[in-house]
């Protein structure tokens, strides 16, 4: 990295950026092919499926993307569980008492009840909510998706009613996941006034030192000069001006 990067700190690893990009692309493909199946009979959905090469190909694309999504989810969860067990990484994604306090503080601030705003660590409650939203919804979608992928095989073990139930779950939970992505993630990660229009840190892996200090004041900032893995002292925290 060049000297220009002095103003930046590393925020995400290559693996994290890859996982984000993978989920991003797969999520869009799944949403497009999924929604057009959900809204069959309407002009745009029929046209989209037609352009994709017919319903059989649209379903194939949807299923293959689903399988890849499941693979990313499995490798991510496997790594997280293993590394956490080996105490190589901290529990930084587990919601803490502070997160719930932060929600209350933020709500009071938004409702004009106080001027105090929460100070965040490496991940704030918005990002944790979104992470767990993705993990939980992802698991529900993967499970129900596999029931719909292999209904005849699985009804040999499961009651028949699980198939229509899985259709409903897949449909509604997919919609909930889409809402979390659009109304929560896109807003809180990119579109909210503090960040608008776009936060590139998850794609480049780096974040400006200024933003890091403003948005994650409680996280110790690793110095690029000191190299990766260096654990600097916790900084004195100042309430940032907006």
């Amino acid at each position, binding site marked *: 990295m060049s000297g220009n990067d002095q103003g930046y700190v590393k925020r995400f690893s290559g693996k994290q950026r890859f996982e984000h990009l993978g989920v991003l692309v797969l999520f869009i493909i799944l949403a497009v092919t999924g929604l057009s199946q959900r809204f069959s009979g309407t002009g745009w959905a029929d046209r989209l499926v037609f352009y994709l090469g017919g319903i059989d190909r649209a379903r194939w694309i949807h299923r293959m993307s689903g399988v890849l999504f499941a693979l990313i989810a499995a490798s991510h969860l496997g790594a997280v569980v293993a590394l956490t067990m080996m105490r190589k990484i901290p529990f930084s994604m587990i919601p803490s008492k502070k997160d719930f306090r932060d929600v209350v503080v933020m709500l009071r601030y938004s409702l004009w009840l106080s001027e105090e705003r929460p100070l965040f660590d490496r991940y704030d409650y918005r990002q944790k909510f979104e992470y767990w939203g993705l993990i939980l919804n992802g698991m529900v979608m993967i499970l129900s998706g596999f029931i719909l992928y292999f209904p005849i095989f699985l009804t040999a073990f499961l009651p028949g009613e699980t198939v*229509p139930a899985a259709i409903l779950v897949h449909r509604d939970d997919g919609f909930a996941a889409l809402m979390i992505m659009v109304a929560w993630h896109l807003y809180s990660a990119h579109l909210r006034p*503090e960040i608008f229009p776009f936060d590139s840190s998850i794609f480049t892996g780096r974040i400006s030192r200024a933003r890091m200090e403003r948005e994650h004041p409680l996280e110790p900032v690793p110095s690029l000069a000191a190299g990766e893995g260096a654990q600097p002292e916790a900084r004195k925290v100042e309430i940032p001006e*907006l």
Partner: protein
Amino acid sequence: MGSRIKTAGMIGRGRAALSRLSGILLLHVLITSAAAHGAPLPSENSSCLNCHGVRTLALRLKSGEERSLYVDAERFAQSIHGKKLLCTNCHRDIKTYPHPKRTFENLRVFTLAYYENCKGCHFDNYTRSLDSVHYTVFSKGDARAPLCVDCHGAHDVAGPRDPKSRISKTCARCHEEVYTRYAGSVHGKALLHEGNVDVPVCTDCHRSHNIEDPRTASFHLRSPSLCAACHTDEALMKKYGISTHVLRSYLKDFHGKTASFSEKTRSKRSDFTVVCTDCHGVHDIVPVVDPPLTAIKTNLVRTCRKCHDSGVESVPAAWLSHYDPTPEKAPLIYAVEAFYGIFIPILVTGFVAQILLHVWRIIVNR
């Protein structure tokens, strides 16, 4: 050549010997008899009937067959054209007397020769018939394919829906096996035994003039809309206590979605998906309450097996029938619907509220 006006047997029929000279006498006889039935013929017709009103008037064809040239004046008068048309309105080629000599191979060739007579007035239906499977067969050289007169008759044309059951009986003349199955179905029984005209006859699904080949993928995939035409009609279905949700619930399901998407893109028989008729039958549709429920499930498994190899025994339980899930019938489905019915609105409202609150606070703070 070889064909000639056959006059044998005319004498002794009571109408006196016919010849070109005795036409005037016959004219009187016919006018009187027609008037007695209250249906006077247009005056021009009567001169044709001088000859064609004789029962024995016939044409001997090359094949040895005999084609009667007799026109029953009374039946023509009662036909739908009786008061409207003159003979030469249809028989346009007849302009002189004696008529120009024509020879015909056999009876079918005779009928074919006059095939386009109806076209002059009924051009719309003539054109439609060119799109029919009957015409396709005809154009490949099969002379058995029906022409206008084969279904409608010639001089005795009546309103085709008069009564409605006549339509199915007309088709039955060639499609007897299908008719027998139809006659035993819930629709056929209602029509034939109860005179119920709510039920479909052949032409309601197959159309009348532009009859499509029902064996194609596109007909198969579009067939649910044929059933739906009546089965989504609230007023009609209410009379019989039948749910109108059948189409909606079918289209919501996997096979229904496949059908609605692939209407335009699929053509191979192997690509077909399950439509109404695959479970309910085509011509032999019976009410679902008729056989006990277990019989339906057996049918269903048999239907599934047509496409799915194995393990389908448990599948019927995955089909919730066409009715909306209730807590008693499908508790799991009902619970899932209820959960997301509450969860999603709360989620979305929460998201929208937090965005609006946040934006508002930030903007004002600035």
